[in-house]
């Protein structure tokens, strides 16, 4: 076989050892991975992004398909392992991901013309992947990256997908892992354990559109809702419950929403200008723990190091349906569930009653919080604040016990002091004492119960520390 130097394109082979890269700064992090900005020293110090994934937290992985070349698809330049970590070297996209752009600078979402430009390029990438017989499996703002010139790339590593996919192959099955249906997954992926199809990508694409528009998960009503009809229709078609009714990526590209779509310079001018650098944004995001978009929460729930199990009894959400008027998702509860807590209530009805102001009833907020905010930090914080409340209650109880003891003692003293007094008075006192004793007993009992609870909570906190895996 004489086939040396026949390579027309793919010429540069990036080095496969960590020593060749000089790490400059941390620019992103999730529980199972960290992203660095780095330079590749032997390659004229080309700036690259390196994602270090902790494979000990993946159930299994698989080789990725041969690299794809498409202007809107971001591939790894190379990948290698170093102990438990897989290092993915990628081109450095200076504006970062949409997740990071939105959470740092556009908390209320992007404007429609900008969304159109971004989504059109994303769709081009998706359509390309689909014609190559690939499913992406993880379309989300965090995986859509923008370069300084406004060009949009969808990151696609076959490997990452399989880490997430692996969840379904765990020994105990998939449905028990997540108490509620994750809204970014197509209903058929959650409910039928059949494979992931291209139409499930379309669902996630629709969700991504909503997230770009609202600047947060499309579950809580946002301040603005004045989107164009074309946009609403386009998203609604992606979020059809029946996968066969969702359009293909190619068909979507022809949707009127993408007509007269602006150019890259529009994006540069309206989104990228004045954006803080990736490093600054990352530092900022550490302070702002509750990122408005899902990926932070989602990666916790999604990856194998998730905290999936929670003992809180609440209504389980079996799926989500799209409310085109509100331009958000409504939860759907199982109708045939044996779970006694489940009621057939849809939020649509409740929101009408609420009329103004707070569009989400408090009940739904609880559920939403559970569905969307399962990151360790807030969970641990909840437990900590629970403990604080508990301690306060215990202190109060102790005080009330003291008071009661004082009353009883006083009563006893009185009793002794009035020896030989009227029998009826003595009887009365005996009754009081008896009552007080019963009360005291009850209080002691409830106090020890509370102490037990406190202990359990402490243990849980302890195990949180143990579990907060690769987050940092």
């Amino acid at each position, binding site marked *: *076989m*004489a*086939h040396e130097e*026949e*390579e*027309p*394109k*793919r010429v540069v*082979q990036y080095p*496969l*050892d960590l020593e060749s890269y000089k790490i400059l700064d941390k620019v992103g992090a999730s529980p199972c991975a960290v992203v660095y900005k780095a330079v590749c020293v032997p390659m004229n110090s080309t700036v690259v992004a390196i994602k270090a994934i902790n*494979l*000990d*937290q993946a*159930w*299994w*992985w*698989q*080789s*990725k*398909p*041969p*690299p*794809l*070349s498409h202007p809107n698809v971001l591939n790894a330049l*190379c*990948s*290698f*392992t170093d*102990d*438990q970590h*897989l290092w993915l070297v990628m081109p450095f996209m200076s504006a970062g991901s949409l997740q990071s752009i939105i959470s740092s600078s556009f908390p209320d979402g992007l404007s429609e013309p900008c969304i159109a430009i971004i989504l059109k390029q994303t769709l081009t990438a998706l359509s390309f992947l689909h*014609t*190559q*017989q690939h499913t992406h499996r993880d379309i989300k703002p965090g995986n859509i990256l923008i370069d300084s010139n406004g060009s949009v790339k969808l990151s696609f590593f076959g*490997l990452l997908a399989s880490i997430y996919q692996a969840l379904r192959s*765990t*020994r*105990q099955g998939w449905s028990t*892992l997540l108490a509620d249906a994750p809204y970014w997954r197509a209903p058929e992926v959650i409910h039928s354990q059949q494979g992931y199809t291209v139409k499930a990508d379309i669902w996630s694409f629709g969700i991504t559109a909503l997230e770009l528009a609202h600047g947060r998960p499309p579950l809580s009503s946002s301040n603005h809702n004045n989107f164009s009809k074309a946009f609403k229709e386009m998203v609604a078609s992606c979020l059809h419950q029946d996968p066969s009714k969702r359009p*293909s990526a*190619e068909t979507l590209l022809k949707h009127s929403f993408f007509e007269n779509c602006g150019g890259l310079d529009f994006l540069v001018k309206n989104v990228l200008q004045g954006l803080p650098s990736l490093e600054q944004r990352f530092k900022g995001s550490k302070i702002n723990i509750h990122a408005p978009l899902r990926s932070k929460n989602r990666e916790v729930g999604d990856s*194998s*190091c998730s905290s*999936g*199990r929670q003992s809180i009894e609440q209504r389980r959400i079996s799926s989500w349906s799209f409310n085109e008027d509100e331009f958000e998702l409504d939860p759907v509860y199982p109708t045939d569930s044996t779970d006694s807590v489940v009621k057939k209530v849809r939020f649509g009805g409740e929101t009408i009653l609420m009329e103004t102001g707070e569009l989400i009833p408090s009940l739904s907020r609880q559920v939403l919080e559970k569905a969307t905010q399962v990151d360790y930090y807030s969970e641990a914080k909840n437990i900590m604040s629970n403990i604080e409340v508990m301690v306060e209650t215990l202190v109060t109880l102790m005080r009330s016990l003291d008071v009661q003891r004082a009353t009883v003692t006083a009563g006893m003293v009185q009793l002794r002091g009035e020896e030989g007094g009227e029998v009826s008075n003595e009887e009365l006192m005996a009754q009081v004492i008896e009552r007080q004793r019963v009360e005291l007993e009850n209080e002691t009992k409830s106090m020890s119960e509370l102490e037990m609870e406190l202990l359990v909570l402490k243990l849980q906190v302890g195990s949180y520390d143990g*579990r907060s895996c690769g987050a940092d």
Partner: protein
Amino acid sequence: MKGLFKSKPRTPAEVVRQTRDLLLYVQRASDTRESKREEKQMSELGKNIRELKSILYGNSESEPVAEACAKLTDEFFKENTLRLLILCLPKLNLEARKDATQVVANLQRQQVQSRLIASDYLEANIDLMDVLISGYENTDMALHYGAMLRECIRHQSVARYVLESQHMKKFFDYIQLPNFDIAADAAATFKELLTRHKSTVAEFLSKNYDWFFAEYNSKLLESSNYITRRQAIKLLGDILLDRSNSAVMTRYVSSRDNLRILMNLLRETSKSIQIEAFHVFKLFAANQNKPTDIIGILIANRSKLLRLFADFKTDKEDQEFEADKAQVVREIASLEPREP
């Protein structure tokens, strides 16, 4: 040559024939540097391969048609098109390589008159496997040849050839290559070889037990590379727990050397490795005919093992795991020393 490039709609067989002619041309013209003419041939070839792909997979407008696929497959294997395509693959551009890989993959599953004729072809041209496997030594070709190889070993006879060939030994190195993509691809092929065709695998393992497990232990399970150990222990579990390999399993769990390796893996700091190691270790404990030296080791380490299992938990509740663990604990706790 002129009549070749008419733009009339062509039959699937014609596309195959034209592809073959172009491949022959490309193969012959290997020495000359890129001339205009050669470039044109190359782009023509790329188009033809893409057309083959769209006949086999369908495109956005149409689903694949069974009859067209059968015609294409028939013509493809009638002559040596597959050999030409494999040998010329390094000369094609990246897009054409990917298309060609998908075409070859798809052809392995196509039936002509309810026969997998690809299997017959490969049996007669089994040396092509040597070309595909050696692809792991070439960074540019590894993933393309690797993907083709994995499709080819779907045929049992082809898998048997690879298992019994000298190439099998090379996989122990391929799966530890520094390039993660290639290493992972080789690992996927290795796993496929050792799990897909049950009877062939059982026969291979019995015949090659000594060298295979010696290599497996020293190169993979005791590798300094985390990824290698992790994948190897998982695959070992899959192999030994497969009913068809019960004879091999019995032999494996009677060796004190193997037990020592597994006990070391149980002590790893990686939870994932520990859990996978447990699924193999439990076989040693559950073995009802434990050799004396195995019993001796288990008793000597009894308190350490029981302590280890006491804190041993999966991240998520797993009843099966808990039941297995309870049984292993009972088994170890009740061991009594035997006279040698």
